[in-house]
């Protein structure tokens, strides 16, 4: 369960580069809910996710995950509750370390790490089974450096790592945007299987409207640091890509109107 209450974030406050990235966002995702966050560049969708993950502290508002107020928790502490997959396939794994070692790290997510062998036999056996489930033939390459794998393979492994210990919240940050169409499709299918299978509470950021239509039980559309539209329930089920395009067009027109009005005002009064 995730509850976000009226969070604000301004980067470079008080300088010419000031960016008001989040301007009062509230969002509630119930236990087992799957929200897809959609938006253009600079809409604040990734900032929202980073705020939840704890990459920075918000200026105002509060964030609750699984009943705990994590607003002032540093990122590494929130990791106990959050499984995360990044946009860049290179971000989610340690490239010079083996597949097995990467998973050994993931099996201790948010837990105390001790002076004992990282890779135990039981972890290894379980790992082989779960990796076999990916049907990528990686179960026989557990000792290869993960950096030698393709982006799609790494992203699939990252997804498996993030959900090895069932997270209270799964964050997917445009996790297929950097992949070729075939790998993207594979990773999306895997995402559906894992999220559905474990009943994970999930927030997925994407700019693919097709994904937004196909996945999740709620779509949230962000614009200029605010939630512009939200579709859930039957409305979400009926949603088509064309509907979303229409809404985007609407936002764009409204914005152009704002700009032309501003230009008019400037011409008349400045």
């Amino acid at each position, binding site marked *: 369960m995730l509850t976000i209450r009226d969070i604000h974030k301004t980067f470079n406050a008080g300088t010419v580069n000031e960016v008001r990235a989040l301007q009062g966002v509230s969002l509630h995702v119930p236990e087992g809910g799957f929200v897809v966050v959609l938006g253009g560049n600079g809409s604040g969708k990734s900032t929202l996710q980073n705020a939840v993950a704890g990459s920075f502290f918000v200026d105002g508002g509060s964030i609750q995950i699984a009943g705990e107020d994590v607003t002032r928790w540093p990122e590494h502490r929130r990791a106990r509750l959050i499984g995360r997959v990044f946009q860049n396939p290179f971000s989610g794994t340690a490239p010079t*370390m083996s597949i097995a070692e990467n998973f050994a790290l993931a099996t201790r997510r948010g837990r105390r790490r*001790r002076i004992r062998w990282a890779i135990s036999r039981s972890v290894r056996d379980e790992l082989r089974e779960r990796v076999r489930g990916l049907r990528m033939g990686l179960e026989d390459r557990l000792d290869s450096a993960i950096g030698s794998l393709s982006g799609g393979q790494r992203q699939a492994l990252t997804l498996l790592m993030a959900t090895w210990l069932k997270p209270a919240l799964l964050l997917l940050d445009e996790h297929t945007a950097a992949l070729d169409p075939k790998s993207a499709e594979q990773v999306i299918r895997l995402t559906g299987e894992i999220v559905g299978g474990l009943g994970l509470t999930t927030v997925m950021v994407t700019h693919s409207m097709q994904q937004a239509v196909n996945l999740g039980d709620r779509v949230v559309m962000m614009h200029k640091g605010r939630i512009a539209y939200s579709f859930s329930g039957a409305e979400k089920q009926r949603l088509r890509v064309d509907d979303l395009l229409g809404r985007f067009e609407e936002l764009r027109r409204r914005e152009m109107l704002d700009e032309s009005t501003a230009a008019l005002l400037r011409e008349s009064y400045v």
Partner: protein
Amino acid sequence: MTLMLGALTIGLILSLLAMGIFISFRVFEIADITVDGSITLGAALCAVLLVRGVNPALAMAASFLAGTVAGTITGVLQARFKINPLLSGILVMTALYSVNLHIMGRSNIPLLTAENVTTWADRWSQALLGVADVNVFGWMVAGRDLGILALVLGIVTMVGVALYGFLRTEVGTAMRAAGDNPQMIRALGVDVESYRILGLALSNGLVAWSGALLAQYQGFADAQMGIGMVVWGLASVIIGESLTGSRSLGLAIYGAIAGSVLFRLLVAMALRWGLNPNDLKIVTALFVFGALVLPTWVGTWRRNRTIAETAKP
């Protein structure tokens, strides 16, 4: 032969330094110049304690701990105060110069009369071999020198195995990941900054231990002995990588040790063939420069050649 034996022993002693540098340079990709100060710190503290009659093993343990403190300070400057890694190292190294002079009370402490590990090695080899000189492949070698070599080899093996084991524990793998991909390991719940501090502490602990052994072997501790040691360690690590490759962790650690020994042997030969000892540091620096730059050049040259060949009709 005595010369070679000496080079081998010093090479092994400095391989503790190389393993320390391996942690900071290869795990965290920091050129940590703190080691120039912490190797002297280890030597100075050990020398002072030995002169006061402290057990050599305890004196070396104290040196190791002092080194970890120095590394911790560098780590805290980087992690908590967000000071550039290189600058953090320079600050601590500079401060250590004064600290070392205070510890020693003067700039040089001779150890010739104090009981230390070389006297132990002397005694053991006498007891074991019963004679002062031993015939090794036709050369007469002092049993004492062999004893010291065996002792140092034992310590280095032990440290190498322990380091390898540690880097494969839960804490050790997290530390390697903290250097390899901080973003990823933070998302898995690791406080990257703390691990960086831990790594630098461990690294400088090994370096200080190396200094303690070096002081005992050469029979004195000197305030200037740390100058250029970081470059020395980098050279060893780089040579080691070209010997063993860096694919596997065990080979990389073994490589650091072998690189240190090989480099010392090369230097001993160069000095024997008439290299001016004053030129040693510049040669070392040039060597590291070459080792850092050549792989890129060779890579570019190869790529260009492949492109040129494929472009041919």
